[in-house]
């Protein structure tokens, strides 16, 4: 596909993969990323290997960054933002680069790979932002990437008891999020396993609705960790802080049939994957309204020829699923360009 230009909005794992695949097929790609560095959310995740690889896919992001940076057909702008976009025969795109310079680009196709937004749990009764030791799974990813042993944010002490609370902002009709975020069971259990492997004295409780299958050998993995992690099928109520700085959690323990109060040193909230909105108002520019679930799918994008979406912008996906999706979208783009 020589002489064809593709604009990719978003330099996460999906945007990078689509860029690499299109570049290999001789398309010219301009990728704009709003942050300073490439990789998106997954680019900040930790390796979760213990004595063996946990198959989370976080390491793959580095490979994608390397490949995209070194490909002659890909031009990347970091800290860039879209200014205007319109479509006649092609897309006329203007965007601001890092130094606020305005740049124009004529694209034959556009891929929206803007990823996801993490649900903000501040309105949930779990004390996020009120208590330092309540963090999200994404905070924990970053922490584990930099610290060998997890320390409690408030005082730097190694926590003896950690609670993971799943489905915060997912499968939640109170906020109209009628979807499972798909990746949090895998990410949280792998991190729980990593923490417990590094420090056997840290007891981990896992509060959940349903444990979701992840990875190729889920049954095997699950059987192995179930003995070491307290699996509690309940979503706790309020979190309080005790005078000596611990976190008190109330939950209904089904096996006992009663309400329990338990103290923890740290609480990790697995926050849901929610849509980013309409990519800086871009979709409105094409007369597309907010999709029903908030995640645009193929059907939703169809009215605008040449406009595609890839990765978690379309809905929750693991790293490896986002890679597979972006590969597929790259082929769809090539197919569209061939027909032009």
């Amino acid at each position, binding site marked *: 596909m020589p002489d064809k230009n593709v604009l990719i909005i978003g330099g996460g794992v999906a945007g990078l993969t689509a860029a690499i*695949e299109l570049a*290999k*097929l001789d398309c010219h790609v301009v990728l704009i990323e709003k942050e300073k560095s490439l990789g998106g959310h997954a*680019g900040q*995740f*930790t*390796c979760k*290997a213990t*004595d*063996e*690889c946990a*198959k989370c896919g*976080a*390491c*793959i*992001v*580095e490979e994608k960054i*390397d*490949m995209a940076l070194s490909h002659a057909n890909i031009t990347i702008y970091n800290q860039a933002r879209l200014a205007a976009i319109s479509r006649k025969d092609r897309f006329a795109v203007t965007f601001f680069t890092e130094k606020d310079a305005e740049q124009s680009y004529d694209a034959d196709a556009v891929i929206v790979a803007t990823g996801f937004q993490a649900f903000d749990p501040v309105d949930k009764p779990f004390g996020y932002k009120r208590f330092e030791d309540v963090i999200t799974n994404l905070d924990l990813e970053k922490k584990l*990437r*930099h610290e*060998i042993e997890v320390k409690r944010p408030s005082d730097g002490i190694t926590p003896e008891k950690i609670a993971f609370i799943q489905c915060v902002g997912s*499968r939640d*009709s109170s906020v109209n999020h*009628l*979807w*499972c975020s*798909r990746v949090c*069971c895998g990410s949280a259990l792998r991190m729980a396993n990593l923490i417990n492997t590094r420090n056997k004295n840290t007891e981990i409780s896992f509060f959940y609705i*349903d*444990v*979701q*299958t*992840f*990875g*190729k*050998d*889920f*049954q*095997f993995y*699950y059987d192995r960790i179930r003995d070491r992690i307290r*699996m509690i*099928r309940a979503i706790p109520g309020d979190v309080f802080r005790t005078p000596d700085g611990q976190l008190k959690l109330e939950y209904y323990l*089904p*096996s006992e*049939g009663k309400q329990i109060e338990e103290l923890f040193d740290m609480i990790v909230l697995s926050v849901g994957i929610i849509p980013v909105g309409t990519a800086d108002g871009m979709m409105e520019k094409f007369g597309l309204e907010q999709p029903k*679930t908030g995640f645009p799918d193929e059907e939703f994008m169809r009215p605008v020829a040449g406009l595609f979406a890839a990765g978690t912008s379309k*809905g929750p996906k693991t790293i*490896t*699923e986002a*890679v*597979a999706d972006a*590969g*597929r*979208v*790259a*082929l*769809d783009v*090539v*197919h569209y360009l061939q027909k032009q």
Partner: protein
Amino acid sequence: MTGRVCIAGDGPCAVNTAKELLIHGIDTVLVSRRKIAQSELPDNMSREGGAGISVYGNAEISGCSGCVNDFRITIHQNGAGAITENVTGIVIAEEYQRKDNFETYGLKPSHAVTSLSEMVRVMENKSDQVAFPPKGSGILFLTGCFQESNPVVLYDVMNCALQLRKEYHQDVFILTGNLKVAGEGLEALYRQTRTAGVFYIKVNQVLPEIEQSDEGKVTVSCQDEILHTAMRLSPDLVVVDETLLPSEYLMKLAKVFELNQDKAGFLQSDNVHRNPVFTNRRGVLVVGPSRGILERREILNDVGNVTIAMMNQIRGKIDSASVGKARIGVVECARCLTCFRICPYKAIRLEDRVTVYEDACEGCGICIAECPREYITWTGPGMADELEKIQISGIADPADRFSPVMVAFCCQRSAGRSVRTAKDRSPELPEGLKIVEVPCAGGISTDHILRTFQKGADGIILLTCHPGNCHSEVGNQYAKSRADHVGKRLSAMGFEKERLQVDTIAANMDREFVRVINSFQKKLMEIGPSLIRKSLKH
């Protein structure tokens, strides 16, 4: 190179792959174990300037030789005997085998016990006379109670349940362990079934007790974990869920193509480097139900990825970490077959002499390091050249603070990447650190290690991928066992074996890299300079 691709499969996945490849100008040979009806195939099977899609029905693939770009496959067709086809690439696109879980639940099929597939079939063919009992004690689905299920099965369960409720006005119960709603749209579908009146009972800790009478009727006693109530159900019909497995034929194809499998037997090892559709062999790709349990959308994604990979392969664009390839000395080779046995990519050809298929070689260097007579060499710049570049000088003044010279051999897919980020972010890496990037840690030979010590290195650290993350599958194991072996020999010679260390680092763990290096440096400072380095001139 014929530019043709062989597809193994007899279902929608194989046909969709053939269609998609045809759209992008790639001819295919579809080998199906059953006769595929014309109605299942695309209307247009030909293309301008090519052969399009050709089909072998009632046929099996029984052999494969050659390598990427030049495979020769043997097809056994009923009534026609063996046929050989030359193809550029191979796509395995077989469907799942669905195994009913009657035994798991201690049940036998009867008028009151049926399988999920059977129920799906009944729901799909509405014309079938559905003899549902008059509204009585209802229909019970058993899913994921004694073993974990998956979204693909749950979709079928909930879809059937919804139809039974809405169209046949049945009382429907779903007894489940973890409800696998992580599939596209499944949480929404779950809500829909609940609104329609499907009743869910969740168990996990206390498993249900299931009994079947001689007449085949089933009684289930269970304890709902969420509601904390005991229940006893005597449904008119029990629908039992299924396990999705690789078929026996798929297992056979794994042998024919020498592919690594995952624990369940699907034809792709559980290794993130194989994602999405790659196997341990170049040019052999695996799609959807042949590589794991995937949803419809994901299978379509796989078909797209296979198409892109084949387009690139035919255009001669294959990603490779290594520029070098292995070459076996023609005269010297003693045909011990070590290389043939260990090559993780099956890139060694065994004909009148042992040679390397260049197109299939990934350049990991494992055969080079393992060849007992050192008769295998690199075609490109090899690791030995990298080692030549390392300059180590002696110690100027013994009174100075000792700064150990450390050589870190880094797999370029993992530690090599983490080094690059570490250099950007932590410029304070020890000055005595020398990095040698290698295509795979499995290619670091005993000779490389000994020569590096000979040059005066105070310590050597081999940084490999984590087990299960090695692109060559076992390169990290070779690195580890070789280091153990060398360590023993060093000890015997009176050389501190602690100077040789093996660690695992992932590509994204730059801080961990710095930490590992710093602690190795600390250890070497305690041991002091190596004897060899002390004897070097400054």
